[in-house]
């Protein structure tokens, strides 16, 4: 790795970037948080003081170099500061998902042998104390919100602000400076646990080099600067949040705003009006669904105006964004539309000022993607993963499409293996999996090529990468055709009525699918059609709902049939599950990705039913409630047949 002459100069660690920002942007807002109904803000100079105070306090408590410190809470400035304070002490911050149940948390805390834990409130303190006896290494807990904690034993429990005060009153200044001076670009910056669609989570170690180089490259790619702003609302344990808020935020010095609570996020987004925005496809889908539902309730005149201008925007909007030639008349009409429809709509969605917006993680429906782009929002896709410090490929301005994930990000090299798996080499490529040399060796070879686990190909004429599926999920049907479940699932999920789909068929002669309905969209439809239902389960089993979903499945089959490579993946039979797939039940990861194998085991009876031709199957499923108790739901599901289509190749043969 490069030492000495680095492209980032002296700014080789996050604490050094902090010092730079404090002197260069001292009076500019660095963090905002809405509290007590008002946006509070902190300048870079204040942030620097807060971080120093906490770092000194942590030294007073006895934090050693190389220790891991877990951070468990929602997005709040105090936690972002804590991460940098921990880095300043030469220790490693490990942000965790705050909604993880105590057992999941215990695994991670034990694996990284965290001595200190910084948490938000009583709920998280209780979780830590619950698993305390399994974790002999855990020594001190710091909390932010004292509510309900007054009666707790405070020998090893501390108020965050008290520790800051202790730090300022203490005598560790020289030690802190010495530790800061020791750090270089290869010092570990952060450790993030990947949610893992299979098996236990793995701790991805990312160095300052990974984070700073990725942050710098991404910031330069999109021309971000100190006057930009973001809303930090995605889990802190997720690599994207770390890169956007800390990597790019510290490199450029822009302002990070934290919402008041998860429920107020949409409202806070509107008030902040960020210029740089990231959201998973799910978010964009949800917002679009709610816009469409609200438009259906609008007056006929407004509905007509909305339709007229949105149809027009679909033609012209993306062209204007991409800088393609557009006639004066069309521009004029677009400006009118902007005044009447697009502008107010963007304002309501909090996207008025977005210069660069990204989505990633899952495929996004072309209609959804086009909707935002036609409004004039520069929404782009990127492809990345924790091990790459996010960026593998990115869509440059002017080359944005729904079906690709863009060209290699600056500094990234790509290679496609014979089996179709995508490999990359980049400055952001992770150091190792913590305490897991086998997995590290499996993923990253001696030359630094990292396996993504995704299968894809590079389009010859454009150089854009297209992802088909997870490499290990891609299989073969019994007749030798390619089986790529995600490809079909994504097509299904583009229908607003379908929230989640799981396709099976590896090694079989035909494919079958489980579907989850989207309660918002289908519930709204039911209300309009006077269909009464008392529960998710009842609505999911309604014959008319099944009819609609059958149409969707058949539409998808028709489109899949057109692709000669994947035409074997048409869905012959399907059923609508009686429960929503849920991370609490282990069916999804915390980042809402489907855990195929677990679902396959759990609902084996239903899969068998889909293959043996039964019309109805009764089943009982165990579910976990939010408070950790278990219950079970039983249901009788209807299995439906769907029409399949002859493939393009078959048609030719028949002629």
């Amino acid at each position, binding site marked *: 790795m490069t030492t000495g002459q680095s492209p980032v100069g002296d700014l080789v660690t996050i604490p050094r970037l902090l010092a730079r920002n404090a002197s260069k942007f001292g009076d500019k807002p660095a963090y905002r948080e809405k*509290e*007590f*109904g*008002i946006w509070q803000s902190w300048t870079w100079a204040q942030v620097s003081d807060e971080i120093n105070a906490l770092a000194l306090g942590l030294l007073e408590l006895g934090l050693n170099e190389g220790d891991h410190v877990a951070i468990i809470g929602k997005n709040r400035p105090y936690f972002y500061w804590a991460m940098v304070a921990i880095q300043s002490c030469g220790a490693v911050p490990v942000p965790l998902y705050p909604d993880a149940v105590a057992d999941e948390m215990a695994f991670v805390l034990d694996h990284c042998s965290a001595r200190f834990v910084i948490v938000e409130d009583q709920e998280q303190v209780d979780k830590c104390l619950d698993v305390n006896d399994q974790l002999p290494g855990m020594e001190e807990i710091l909390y932010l919100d004292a*509510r*309900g904690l*007054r*009666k707790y034993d405070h020998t090893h429990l501390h108020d965050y602000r008290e520790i800051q005060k202790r730090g300022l009153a203490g005598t560790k200044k020289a030690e802190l400076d010495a530790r800061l001076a020791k750090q270089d670009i290869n010092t570990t910056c952060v450790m993030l646990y990947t949610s893992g669609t299979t098996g236990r989570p793995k701790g991805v170690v990312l160095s300052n080099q990974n984070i700073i180089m990725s942050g710098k490259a991404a910031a330069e790619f999109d021309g971000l600067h100190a006057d930009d702003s973001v809303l930090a609302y995605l889990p802190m344990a997720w690599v994207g949040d770390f890169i956007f808020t800390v990597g790019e935020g510290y490199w450029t010095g822009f302002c990070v705003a934290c919402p*008041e*609570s998860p*429920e*107020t996020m949409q*409202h806070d987004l509107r008030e902040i009006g960020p210029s740089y925005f990231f959201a998973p496809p799910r978010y964009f889908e949800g917002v679009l669904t709610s816009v469409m539902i609200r438009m259906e309730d609008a007056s006929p005149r407004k509905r007509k105006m909305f339709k007229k201008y949105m149809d027009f925007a679909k033609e012209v909007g993306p062209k204007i964004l991409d800088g393609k030639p557009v006639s004066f008349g069309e521009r004029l009409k677009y400006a009118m539309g902007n005044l009447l429809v697009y502008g107010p709509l963007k304002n309501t969605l909090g996207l008025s000022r977005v210069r660069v917006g990204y989505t990633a993680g899952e495929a996004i429906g072309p209609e959804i993607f086009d909707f935002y782009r036609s409004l004039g929002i520069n929404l782009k896709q990127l492809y990345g993963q924790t091990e790459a410090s996010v960026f593998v490929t990115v869509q440059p301005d002017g080359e944005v499409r729904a079906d690709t994930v863009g060209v290699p990000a600056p500094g990234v090299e790509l290679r496609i293996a014979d089996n179709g798996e995508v490999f990359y080499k980049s400055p952001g490529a992770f150091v190792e999996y913590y305490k897991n040399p086998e997995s590290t060796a499996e993923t990253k070879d001696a030359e630094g090529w990292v396996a993504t686990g995704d299968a894809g190909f590079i389009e010859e004429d454009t150089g854009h990468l297209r992802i088909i599926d997870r490499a290990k999920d891609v299989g073969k049907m019994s007749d030798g055709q390619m089986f790529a479940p995600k490809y079909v699932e994504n097509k299904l999920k583009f229908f607003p009525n379908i929230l989640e789909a799981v396709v099976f068929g590896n090694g079989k002669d035909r494919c079958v699918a489980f579907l989850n309905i989207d309660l918002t969209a289908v519930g709204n439809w039911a209300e309009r059609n006077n269909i009464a239902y008392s529960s998710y389960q009842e609505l999911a089993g309604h014959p008319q709902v099944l009819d609609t979903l059958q149409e969707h499945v058949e539409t998808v089959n028709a489109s899949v049939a057109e692709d000669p490579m994947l035409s074997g993946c048409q869905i012959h039979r399907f059923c609508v599950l009686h429960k929503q797939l849920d991370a609490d039940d282990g069916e999804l990861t915390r980042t809402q990705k489907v855990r195929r194998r677990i679902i396959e085991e759990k609902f084996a009876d239903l899969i068998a039913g889909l293959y043996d031709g039964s019309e109805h199957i009764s089943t009982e499923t165990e579910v976990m409630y*939010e*408070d950790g108790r278990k219950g079970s739901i039983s249901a009788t599901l209807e299995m439906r047949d769907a029409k399949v289509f002859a493939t393009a190749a078959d048609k030719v043969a028949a002629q």
Partner: protein
Amino acid sequence: MTATDSYVTPDGRTIGGVMMEMKNITLRFGGVVAIKDISFDIREGEIRAIIGPNGAGKSSMLNVINGFYHPQEGEVWFRGEKRPSMKPYQIAAQGIARTFQNIALFHGMTTVENVMTGRQLMMKKNFLWQMLRVGPAMAEEVVHRRRCEEIIDFLEIQHIRKEPVGNLPYGLQKRVELARALAMEPKLLLLDEPMAGMNVEEKEDMSRFILDVNDQYGTTIALIEHDMSVVMDLADRVVVLDYGKMLADGTPDEVQKNQAVIDAYLGVEH
């Protein structure tokens, strides 16, 4: 222990001396005797529950405490003084706030506006000043708004701050009502069936809030509740009423073992 002794509960809370004492209260509506010769006390910092079957006189008792009803016989002592007959708003000014069994919010107003009404007694500027909303009136409002926002934060209802309460689900309306009562910064908080009509999760949330209010603000709480498991978990001491008469008074354990209480709740073989 005598009435003035303070003691510490097993979970570490300090319960002080007697705050309010009801002495031989009898309340009649014409010929109907709603409450007959009942005496009990409420101590500083405790969570006191009043339970009993329907028509036992629980709500009437609460209405006596907050001055809405005036008992024909008996005395109410508050903080060492015998309380003369007072209007409810005078009693509110003494630091007694309440919520209602069937939610009494202003439906057209937003959450924050409803909570602000809880501060009305503390606002010193007159109606005209408040209408103009300038200068000292504005300064006053800002101070009170800050207090309300702290309570909104405490009860985690930020997301409905600007929502008219009429649009809110029942469980949240109950929480807004609690917020309004807390906005008065009461010494004694009366809760009339705070969990009625809630599902298990909402009940758990509400229980947590009640405990936190008691812990954080040191507010003494008297509550009426039907859900026995809630009462047994929350309350320090329980009064059991039946047809206007007192059946038992003691800790949840004592009350649960009391034969008269078991008979009243489960019925007696005849």
